[in-house]
């Protein structure tokens, strides 16, 4: 039986279909009251009576909260309601492409990546200030408009999806690639979880590498929880060094040491952006006079170096790129006979003769005692 074509949902007249997702269909629709074209996102409500009531309640709560978010970097929700077992959200209709599609098209310039990440961070900061956490920041939820503006989509829907990620058996469904470690673990999440997700997106934009990729969901979850990333400058040496710190901080596994505010992240991204722009300006002005020669790094890359606390468990540390340690490494790798003797054994207790030769205090004690013994002998027998 052919499906009946939907002509109207609520007061909205359907003009066409924009896309389909796991939760429902997105339509292009007209609002006759305001004569405005909108994106109408429909969500199929649960068939179970108990589930439906809960879902219904959560949907309206979240939609109401999302409706309060009016920010240049957040897709505006105009209206929401229910029609024939379908919940719907009327949202700002945007002409552009989403970040997932943009990433599929090819490499992104660092400036473009930072501009997008900064805008997303600003949008998140605005929402977080109002107590709203997105919970599903990923390239597919970031819309890119023609003039370089980035907008976060699906505020309000994320919580429903996030709830769907975990089943009654504790199994996490869907792809956790952009989730934070606490989200993957099924623990309560707060706004810092969004900042981790944005860190993963930023890393992908900067390097083209999908962080925490794995063959299946358990492997991805393991990587999200335990794997450390390579600093972006290892993969793209032209990036500002400060970006390593920004990314590292956004991707901290422990939320307590991660960025605590989205605005703080936005500010740091702004600083990196300013450095990149200044660098771009300088290279443009001096392009005719100088030539940049890229030096190939001879050192293979290692994941980001662990901090002192975690070194007790993972002691592998990479060679510092700024220092040439090759001579000593060579010595360690192929020790001479003398080095084998020096480096190959544990320290031994120091003998008396050696101590006498090198230790002035011991020497004084032994010599004065010897002299006294001689004097005493003379006094006794001399």
């Amino acid at each position, binding site marked *: 039986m052919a499906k009946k074509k939907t002509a109207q949902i609520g007061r909205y007249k359907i003009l066409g279909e924009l896309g389909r997702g796991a939760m429902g269909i997105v339509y292009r629709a007209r609002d006759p009251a305001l004569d405005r074209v909108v994106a109408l996102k429909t969500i199929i409500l649960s068939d179970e009576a108990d589930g439906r009531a809960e879902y219904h309640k959560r949907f309206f709560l979240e939609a109401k909260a999302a409706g309060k978010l009016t920010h240049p970097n957040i897709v505006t929700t105009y209206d929401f309601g229910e029609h024939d077992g379908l919940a719907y959200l009327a949202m700002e209709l945007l002409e552009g492409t989403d970040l997932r599609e943009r990433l599929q098209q090819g490499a992104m310039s660092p400036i473009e990546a930072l501009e997008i990440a900064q805008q997303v961070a600003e949008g998140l900061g605005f929402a977080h200030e109002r107590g709203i956490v997105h919970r599903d920041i990923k390239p597919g939820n970031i819309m890119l408009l023609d003039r370089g503006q980035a907008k976060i989509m699906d505020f309000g829907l994320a919580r429903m999806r996030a709830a769907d990620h975990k089943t009654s058996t504790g199994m996490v469904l869907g792809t956790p690639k952009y989730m934070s470690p606490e989200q993957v673990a099924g623990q309560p999440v707060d706004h810092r979880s969004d900042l981790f997700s944005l860190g993963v997106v930023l890393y992908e934009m900067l390097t083209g590498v999908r962080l925490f990729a794995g063959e299946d969901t358990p492997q991805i979850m393991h990587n999200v929880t335990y794997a450390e990333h390579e600093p972006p400058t290892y993969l793209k040496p032209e990036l500002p060094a400060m970006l390593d710190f920004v990314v590292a901080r956004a991707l901290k596994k422990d939320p307590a040491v991660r960025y605590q505010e989205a605005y703080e992240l936005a500010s740091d991204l702004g600083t990196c952006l300013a450095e990149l722009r200044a660098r771009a300006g300088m290279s443009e002005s001096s392009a005719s006079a100088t030539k940049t020669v890229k030096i190939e790094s001879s050192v293979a890359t290692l994941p980001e170096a662990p901090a002192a606390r975690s*070194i007790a*468990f993972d002691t592998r*540390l990479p060679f510092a790129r700024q220092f040439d340690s090759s*001579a000593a490494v*060579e010595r360690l790798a192929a*020790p001479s006979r003398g080095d084998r003797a020096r480096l190959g054994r544990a*320290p031994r207790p120091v003998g008396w003769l050696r101590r006498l030769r090198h230790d002035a205090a*011991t020497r004084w004690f032994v010599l004065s005692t010897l002299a006294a013994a001689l004097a005493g002998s003379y006094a006794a027998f001399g």
Partner: protein
Amino acid sequence: MSGSPLASVVFLKIQEFARRPVSEQARLRAQLEAVVAVTAAELDPASRIVLEAGDGAVIVVLADPRGALRLAQRALTACAAGLPLAAGLNHGAVQIAGRKDGAGLTGDGIAVAAAAAEFAPPARLLASRAFRDALAEAAPGVEASLVKAGTFTDPGLRAHELYRPDGEAAKRRAGRYALAGAAAAIALVGAGLAARIAVEGQQPFIESVVAKYRSTAKQGEGYWRALVQKVRF
């Protein structure tokens, strides 16, 4: 070499690094690199390996524990310039790890140094027992400047006996040894004299000492007179 090579490891840790703003992290990291560049320059490039740690830097020093201690102490002077450092020193096993030519180092030597740095208060260093032993072997007597700070247990429930530098400890030890030497001298000479008295009796001994003193004094007087004559002449 049957096992992994042993080396002195200096772990320079920027305190509270993860909690600082990123711009400050970048500044502190750059400052630390400058400090490491200056301090490591004193060592032969063939005897030091510099490693990156998430919250600091690690300098592995081959066959020179004294140099490692000096390096750590010099690096800590940078605290006065606003670099919040703490240092951990250890002497232990290190091994080249990673792909092909080796991308880094691993080993218990690094783990213990990291744990020591973790326990060290701001602008201070803590050294392991193994490092103190290595220092004692390389430069006997210098290890006296490291005094016991206590036993610390890391999150992996491993106990570390750690030592802290004490500039006065070496002086105090030298004083103690001098005092012990003087006491031994007094005791030995006294024992010699007592033995003589026991054999000869007290009166004859005093008389012989007085006689010896007089003859020596006479000899001395004659010597002085001759000397004065010579000077006058």
